[in-house]
């Protein structure tokens, strides 16, 4: 990659050797990042590449493990959001940080209320907010209740809020992910206006076309490291994808195995979000026994919603789902599990396990009725539970002192296997897994992939969703790509192609 060192010499922010280490993982490693004054600085990388971490460090939401941050070539102590604001750095986070019950003006001045002798000057706030919104050409009345606005409009309020604090650097973390076409146009006008006023913008996005249209220069992160930077004028989309994905693609042991008849057939599955946009947009596909499907998509592509709709955890989902020839779309969760579908959810801690329970108790939770004694008032049989859970521990090679140990005593990878084991005890025909290796270290990841292959060999169809490209291709027979709720590509293993997958995952953009 041609690293042009002859960039604009005036960097408004510079980092030197910046690292952020969490227990077990380094989110950011030795990054020298430069933000050029008055430009739109694009930051790009796969999920987990460290973009958000870097931005949190600049905005004071997190403190670096080592390294330093320079603002205007002077070392800046950024320990919290307020000190970042003093240095003129403002951020709009991916998740909205607004109060739905307050008015737009109250939101803009939340934490920085305009007061005289301790009393809020409401009229003044409304007036100032009106001026600010007019300057940004945002057509919203400051007295509207925030909760009454569309998500996109709320995002614009968030931008106004950041700008109310006289900032010189504005960080936008995937600002367009929730915006409609017109709102994106408004946003781009605002960005152009900010540039004219001399404000520097750091812009994080997954939408490559958008990046090409709005950015001045680009920085690419991969696995916590800065791997490339250049002017947008010098590069093209294939350059970005290559920098993001890297050339050294990890290969996992993959054995072709026999694939059986069709077990899952989905037709026109659709799910609307509360804001009226489809989270799952009329998706149709079919999966065969023993087949492994990797669903790849960016954040918000609808992967999780798709899997939850299949399980029945999304009551508003519409469409036809056929499991082994039986229609299951009208069944509640427990009936679908009985019919042979199971989900290993995305958030192990929140959705997958009961922290207060032991390994055995967690594992048998989905299949308790299998372990009751018939002639003893429905008491649970300890011996059968023990047998079943010990069997799973052996089969999945779970490292645990005993099945009666608390589940919280396990490592992330082994916890995940317990959750998988719980699903297996329901004897599923189709096993759904959402981000099966999230928060698991690299060695244990391979272990989880092996487990997936193992299950596929035994005839279970495995459908897993992931936001990591390598993972999507690791052990799958086919990759499904999702973008904005739509199934945009289906690829056979022999035809796997990173660039095509990334392109298919890029949501349609308003511009270009």
């Amino acid at each position, binding site marked *: 990659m041609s690293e042009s060192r002859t960039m604009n010499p005036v960097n408004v922010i510079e980092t030197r050797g910046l690292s952020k280490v969490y227990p077990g993982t380094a989110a950011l490693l030795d990054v020298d990042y430069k933000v050029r004054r008055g430009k739109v600085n694009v930051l790009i990388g796969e999920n987990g590449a460290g973009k958000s971490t870097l931005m949190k460090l600049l905005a004071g939401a997190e403190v670096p493990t080592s390294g330093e941050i320079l603002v205007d070539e002077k070392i800046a102590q950024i320990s919290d959001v307020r000190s970042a604001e003093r240095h003129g750095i403002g951020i709009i986070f991916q998740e909205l940080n607004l109060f739905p019950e307050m008015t737009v003006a109250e939101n803009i001045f939340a934490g920085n209320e305009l007061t005289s002798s301790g009393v809020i000057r409401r009229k003044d706030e409304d007036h100032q907010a009106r001026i600010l919104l007019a300057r940004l050409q945002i057509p919203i009345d400051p007295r509207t209740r925030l909760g009454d606005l569309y998500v996109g409009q709320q995002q614009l309020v968030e931008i106004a809020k950041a700008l109310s604090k006289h900032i010189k650097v504005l960080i936008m973390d995937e600002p367009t992910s929730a915006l409609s076409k017109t709102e994106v146009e408004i946003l781009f006008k605002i960005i152009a206006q900010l540039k004219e006023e001399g404000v520097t913008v750091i812009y994080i996005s997954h939408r490559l076309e958008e990046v090409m249209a709005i950015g001045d220069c680009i920085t690419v992160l991969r696995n916590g490291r800065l791997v490339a930077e250049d002017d947008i004028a010098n590069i093209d989309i294939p350059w970005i994808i290559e920098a993001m994905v890297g050339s050294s693609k990890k290969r996992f042991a993959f054995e072709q195995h026999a694939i059986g008849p069709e077990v899952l057939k989905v037709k026109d599955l659709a799910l609307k979000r509360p804001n009226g946009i489809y989270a799952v947009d009329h998706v149709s596909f079919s999966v065969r026994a023993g087949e492994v499907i990797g669903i790849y998509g960016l954040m918000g592509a609808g992967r999780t919603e798709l899997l939850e709709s299949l399980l029945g955890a999304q009551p508003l989902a519409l469409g036809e789902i056929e499991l082994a020839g039986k229609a299951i779309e009208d069944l509640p969760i427990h009936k679908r599990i009985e019919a042979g579908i199971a989900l290993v959810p995305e958030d192990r801690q*929140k959705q997958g396990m009961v922290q207060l329970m032991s390994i055995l108790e967690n594992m*048998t939770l989905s299949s308790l009725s299998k372990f009751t004694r018939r002639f003893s008032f*429905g008491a649970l049989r300890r011996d059968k539970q023990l047998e079943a859970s010990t069997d799973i521990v052996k089969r999945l090679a779970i490292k645990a002192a005993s099945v009666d140990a608390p589940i919280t005593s396990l490592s992330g990878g082994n916890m995940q296997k317990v959750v998988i084991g719980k699903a297996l005890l329901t004897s599923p025909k189709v096993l759904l897994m959402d981000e099966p290796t999230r928060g698991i270290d690299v060695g244990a990841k391979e272990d989880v992939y092996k487990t997936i292959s193992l299950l596929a060999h035994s005839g279970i169809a495995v459908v897993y969703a992931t936001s990591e490209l390598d993972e999507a291709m690791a052990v799958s027979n086919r990759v499904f790509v999702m973008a904005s709720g739509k199934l945009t590509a289906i690829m056979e293993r022999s035809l796997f192609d990173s660039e095509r997958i990334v392109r298919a995952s890029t949501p349609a953009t308003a511009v270009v």
Partner: protein
Amino acid sequence: MSTPNSSNPSIQPVHGKHNRQSAYVAARIAVSVLKLRIFIALFAIIIVFSLAAENFLSAGNMLIMAKHVTIVAILSIGMTLVILTGGIDLSVGSIVGISGMAAGYLLLEGVKLGHYVVFFNPWGVTLIACALGAVIGAVNGYLITALNVAPFIATLGMLYVVRGAALLVNNGGTFADLGGNPALGNTGFEFLGNGTILGLSMPVWIMVILAAVTIFIAKRTPLGRRIYAIGGNEQAARFSGIRTNRVKLFVYMFSGFCAAIVGLVITAQLQTAHPLTGQTFELNAIAAVVLGGTALMGGRGTVFGSVVGACVISILGDGMVMCGISDFWQMVIKGLVIIFAVVIDQLQQRLQTRMVSLTA
């Protein structure tokens, strides 16, 4: 766990390991003692009061105290299951009131069917009152599951509704003289409150049997496991295919059923149904559950602990009365004991997490 960056790795680990081991042992002993705290508290109370009040251990006093214990204990048994799911039931005191009133009404007035008036024998009366308690519990459960009302609010509302209904039964009046009429074949209701089998009074039998059955359900059946799972992590329970709404409906019905039994027992003991019976009983029941080590967030606790907690709270009350401690001080002391119990529980939790981190 390991410290790769420490500058003197040759000395530090040995020293650290020794410290860690003794710290672990200390934490482990402390946790085991703290786990038994409710028993320790019970023994301490009994010893202190038997020294302070002469008649404390007399047969007569034991009988009176057993009466009080059973009332709190039976309520707390039902309450435990509710709290284990992460809910709360504030309506039990009012259910106590209305179940007594229902019994009084059935015994004295009977049910009018056209020109006939039907009287039930005490068994029938008991059955109907228990069913009434379960139905009120079902209303709680319906509000909480189907209509998504927060348990605190749903049962607070029902606290007022049911108490009002209890007062309406006889326009605020009581039903006195529930001895029954031999001609109608409905005598013998008294047995439920004052009868004895094998030397033990009926309420004690009821408490023991209810506790045994509930402990069996909680510890040994899928239903019990599901109750704990919902309190531990409702979303994970839902994703595991557990019908959380059904389980919740059950616990509120069961709590209502337990409260109805208490209402019957008190009414049978006094031979009078009073519409205000059971006021603030819910607070004692909750206190007993908390004293017994059940977490208000749900997922952790035992029915047995609650029964012992009920013993502590009601023996503490009776003992203080016998020692002539003023009403006002009694309240202060009771309150402090409850708060202290929760503080100790937090301490135990912290020690336990420390123990885990020391073993890791």
